[in-house]
């Protein structure tokens, strides 16, 4: 999965000389007089914006009077905010346009609330194990309402922190939907007001993909991961469609918290773009934890009855050519969740008119420096469709800010060896190439695999068990470690350090040289044979 990222086109940087000159100047003068000038201008213009006359101006005049910034960021999510804040620190007059809540997917409908839910589910697992460790917990009930209230409060708290951070950094927050105008200079309109800057960053992120009723009758009776975070009660009966990490995480959370959960996948395993060991193991773990897995299956239709949704599913094993297609129905479903992928959030932006190229799925095409095909317009994060991860967007946003406003012309994010964790039960950690990718790129004879699997010591005294599996993908005579894959308790926290070492080019010998920390699960990586 990650190597696809490494193989991105090595396009040269498209940097206008004038930007460079400005950036260097910026650095030399440490920004102050220039910034003062901008701020003053910004102040005056924002003062002027309160006048109602301007709204009725002809668009060409308005363009010339559009509020000017050094850096205009569309999208107040991880990438946009990080880029904006760094640019502002470097002296650029910056504004962020956000139509929804600050923090984007990660804070509002992604990593943060997801991990809170995962933590709650981990507590459910702990509660199973309590008696084995000597605690008598008696009757335990779960209140989704309590959890949701706490989670929402925490998310709101983060929204406020983000707002405060922007205010402190003197970054203007513009609330509303951005749309590129037809002005000759790239200009954005929000609620009838125009804004422009020599550098505009698109960081609008993505959205869960949805199916139309035309594609699957009744599809819109279901929700997506966004809707999952709005659920007011724990669904009794859940059907999740999809085999990606979001489907896996949602299924794990809902099932562990007590919802009877079915997972509908088109083929025979989940996480099919992960290393085959992980894919197979995760599929097995899902079933072990009581998730009703429907392989080779697709939803055909959904309809509503008095008792909930009826989800009709067709199943056909492609290997058994003679078998008939089987149609089944899951009754009384109170939550149908589509987790069939994500798509770029570009609707209404009017980027087509800007000469910003997109791929067939609508992702904005950028080079390694985050330049789009239109000079002065950049994109970072999920909207580009590569490595849809918060830290990637943050790092890319910051690198861009350093390039634009500090004159660091080589500042760019290295998309190789990006570590990823899936908060499944137990969690998955992966960095670098899968075995399959390594064989494909280096040849089978040059790839050496080290594997281990064991029961973590945590389970030594519990009746509930889960395995920990680990794999190192090494290449060449020197056995350079190009991939590390694992699933098991604690793998979420194990991966980061190893990802530093792997990025440094660690070999198997380096793993062997490292002294173990006992007793941990992670020590198995440095004692593998």
């Amino acid at each position, binding site marked *: 999965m990650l190597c696809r990222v490494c193989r991105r086109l090595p396009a040269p940087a498209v940097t206008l000389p004038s930007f460079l000159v400005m950036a260097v100047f910026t650095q030399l003068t440490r920004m102050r007089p220039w910034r003062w000038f901008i701020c003053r201008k910004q102040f005056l213009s924002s003062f002027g914006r309160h006048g109602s006359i301007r709204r009725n101006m002809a668009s060409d005049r308005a363009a010339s009077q559009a509020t000017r910034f050094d850096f205009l960021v569309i999208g107040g999510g991880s990438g946009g905010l990080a880029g904006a804040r760094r640019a502002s620190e470097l002296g650029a007059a910056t504004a962020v346009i956000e139509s929804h809540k600050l923090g984007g997917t990660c804070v509002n409908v992604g990593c943060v609330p997801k991990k809170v839910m995962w933590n709650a589910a981990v507590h459910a697992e702990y509660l199973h194990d309590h008696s084995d460790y000597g605690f008598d917990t008696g009757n335990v009930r779960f209140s989704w309402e309590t959890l949701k209230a706490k989670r929402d409060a925490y998310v709101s708290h983060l929204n406020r922190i983000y707002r405060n951070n922007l205010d402190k950094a003197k970054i203007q927050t513009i609330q509303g939907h951005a749309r590129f105008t037809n002005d000759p200079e790239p200009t954005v309109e929000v609620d009838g007001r125009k804004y422009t800057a020599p550098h505009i960053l698109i960081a609008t992120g993505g959205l869960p993909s949805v199916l139309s009723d035309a594609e699957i009758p009744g599809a819109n009776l279901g929700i997506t991961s966004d809707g999952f975070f709005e659920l007011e009660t724990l669904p009794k009966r859940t059907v999740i469609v999809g085999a990606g990490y979001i489907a896996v995480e949602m299924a794990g959370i809902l099932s562990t918290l007590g919802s009877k959960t079915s997972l509908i996948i088109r083929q025979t395993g989940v996480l099919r773009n992960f290393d085959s060991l992980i894919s197979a193991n995760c599929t097995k773990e899902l079933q072990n934890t009581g998730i009703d897995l429907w392989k080779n299956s697709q939803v055909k239709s959904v309809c509503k009855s008095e008792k909930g949704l009826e989800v009709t599913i067709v199943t056909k094993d492609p290997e058994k050519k003679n078998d008939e297609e089987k149609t089944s129905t899951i009754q009384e479903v109170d939550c149908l969740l589509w987790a069939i992928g994500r798509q770029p959030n570009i609707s209404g932006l009017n980027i087509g008119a800007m000469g910003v190229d997109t791929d067939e799925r609508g992702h904005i095409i950028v080079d390694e420096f985050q330049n789009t095909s239109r000079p002065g317009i950049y994109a970072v994060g999920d909207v580009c469709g590569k490595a849809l991860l918060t830290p990637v967007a943050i790092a890319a946003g910051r690198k861009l800010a350093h390039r634009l406003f500090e004159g660091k012309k080589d500042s760019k994010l290295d998309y190789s060896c990006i570590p990823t964790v899936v908060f499944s039960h137990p969690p998955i950690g992966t960095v670098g190439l899968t075995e399959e990718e390594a064989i494909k790129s280096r040849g089978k004879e040059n790839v050496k695999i080290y594997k281990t699997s064991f029961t973590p010591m945590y389970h030594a005294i519990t009746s509930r068990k889960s395995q920990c599996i680990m794999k190192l993908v090494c290449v060449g005579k020197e056995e350079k470690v190009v991939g590390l894959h694992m699933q098991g308790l604690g793998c979420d926290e194990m991966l980061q350090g190893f990802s530093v070492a792997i990025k440094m080019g660690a070999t198997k010998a380096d793993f062997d040289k490292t002294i173990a*920390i006992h007793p941990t699960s992670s020590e198995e990586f440095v004692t593998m044979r």
Partner: protein
Amino acid sequence: RLLVVASFFLSFFFWGVCYSPPPLCISRAGKYDYDLVVIGGGSGGLACSKEAAQFGQKVAVLDYVDPTVKGKIKIWGLGGTCVNVGCIPKKLIHQAALFGTALKDAKKYGWQISEPVCHDWATMMEGVQNHVRSLNWGHRVQLQDKKVKYLNFKGSLVDEHTVKGLTKAGKETILTAKNIVIVTGGRPKYPTNIPGAVEHGITSDDMFWLKKSPGKTLVVGASYVALECAGFLTGIGLDTTVMVRSIALRGFDQQMAGLVTDYMETYGTKFAWKCVPKRVDKLSSGALQVTWTDTQTGGEHQDTYDSVLWAVGRAPETKALGLDKLGVKLNQETGKIVLATDESTSVPNIYALGDIGEGRPELTPTAIKAGKLLARRLAGQSAELMNYDNVPTTVFTPLEYGCVGLSEEEAEKRHGKDNIEVYHAFYKPLEFTVAERDASQCYIKVVCKRFGDQTILGLHFTGPNAGEVMQGFAMGFQCGATYSHLSQTVGIHPTCAEEVVKVNITKHSGLDATVTGC
């Protein structure tokens, strides 16, 4: 340093003279019963003997356990301190204690748990001991599989090629070997000159085999053993006090040590700082009355406890070995065996490793690794020496603390205060937020060289899962990681470990190191 280098060359010289490269995987026992006799069936001994056997050597392991003073355990199985009275039971009970906290957190996460929740020591101990026994058995089976002779003998040295084994029944057996490795480890010490200490107190050896909850406990000492024991006792709901003579976690970074004990204090562990016990008396009620002196005020205090746990250090198990007769050089102060870099003692053919070696870290993984490397050298398979630098470790206190490399103090001492840069961060684990837990002690410190490529000198982390977090970083450290290696690595969101690669505030800057937002 010269000495180290000299002994390194000497050992090579020695190799050259004594060993012409032997044919692979063939026993050279010849006139001796064994190629290798290992005294001590702990982590180091087992690793060494199995590795040697793998290279075709004829190997015997002698393992024998003296009961503790208090006799809480009469005997234990193969695996030594780690398996029986160390790492393994410690971490399992630590896990139990974490559940105490998890229960409080679970309520905030929407779990409604009927109060009160009680912890049953016996249930936990049964699980722990069953696991320990299964490991004992596993080690036995492994020795058998690898054709290592296991002898439940108490071993002592007769000469540089001869070991005397004594069974429990008093039967003597003489074994001869080309090489002998002493890996008898250590046992907890009792203090001297404190009336009642030995009669009424227990040590960590007893702690892990208590059939009944120790109840209200006084832990004397502030080593990692003391703090770990006090931490898990507090965690399972026992009234626990730690009595500290001077400082906690000597040898560790003292800022980190302070965070560990601060957390324990908020967690409910009581601390009697700068206090030394004077006497222990058993009252007619059965309670233990401890009298101590506050060294700051000079005042005398008293309280009663159900148990008094001495965690005042560990002593090497050398007495019964007959080392003095052979002239094996010991460190007079510590009683540990003085070793060269190749684990050789002052007497030819006699080697030692693990906790019994002077200046060696008292850690299972170092003993294992050193044991394997020694076996390979003795079998003529390699000349690689054990590198005792860059040893990571984790203290499993209620708030875990993991580290590798130098403490800030040591880095200052070696490089000068102005030549080091400390990146640090106070972070809040996401799991603490909804649980409304105080995260004031969750901290990361990366000590780097200040100039040049900012090579990392030491890395310190307090927080959940510190052991699992630290291993990978220890490897980066082993590879010579610099600050920019950290900052160039993309984080994993949302985890605690990502905070390590996100550190960007230096101590020199004086800026607030609290992490805000994602």
